[in-house]
């Protein structure tokens, strides 16, 4: 299991936000290499760990930037909207850590995220095999996956 610990003096205001890189999945990258197709460049983004999100989300334009097609659809409910149909994509996320980066491949739902410069929500599907420690009194959080 790899871990990242972030200290942020504005943790209460900004929430558990971290930098990550998102790209096409490893298997598709191999397929592109076999077919001598150009592999789209990975995208750097800010991700918020959101324990109120049942599933992980990327900003809706990111799959398009990566040239990706969907692998499924799902119904989405938010406090203000229900039964909205959205596409799901299979993506690779890397959270850079000095010695041992966190590497995750999984399904992300493409949704329009409101302002705040956040392009990704790390939801409970990603957290289900991990550990999240939020230490408000030290302005720190640790994510282990």
């Amino acid at each position: 299991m790899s871990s990242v610990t972030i200290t942020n003096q504005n943790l209460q205001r900004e929430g558990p936000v971290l930098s990550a890189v998102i790209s096409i999945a490893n298997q598709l990258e191999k397929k592109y290499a076999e077919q001598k197709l150009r592999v789209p460049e990975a995208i750097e983004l800010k991700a918020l760990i959101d324990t109120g999100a049942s599933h992980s989300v990327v900003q809706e334009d990111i799959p398009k930037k990566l040239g990706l097609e969907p692998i499924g659809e799902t119904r989405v409910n938010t406090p203000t909207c229900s039964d909205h149909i959205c596409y799901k994509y299979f993506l690779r996320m890397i959270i850079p850590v000095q010695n041992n980066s966190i590497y995750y491949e999984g399904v992300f739902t493409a949704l329009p995220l409101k302002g705040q410069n956040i392009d990704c929500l790390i939801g409970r599907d990603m957290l289900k095999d991990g550990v999240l420690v939020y230490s408000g009194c030290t302005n720190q959080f640790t994510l282990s996956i």
Partner: protein
Amino acid sequence: MYISYIYCDSMLEKEIETYYKNKEELLNQDRGKYVLIKNGNVIGTFDSEKDAIKIGIDKFGNIPFLVKKIETIEEEQNFTSDLINLC
């Protein structure tokens, strides 16, 4: 009854239609597993979602296909914080 679940203008309209046409049979045989569907064809069922997706990528590459959990009541995604701008 599957007609009620089909929505138009979807990249996966044909696959969704195929799922609901085959749902009863899939539930009887492979409830709880994940089905991989491309166009009108059920390609196979798998124990995990990732296995189904990886087979889908292997067979079809980067073109739309459907991976769906076979279950009576379909899982929805819920977001309690109001960070998503849908409405």
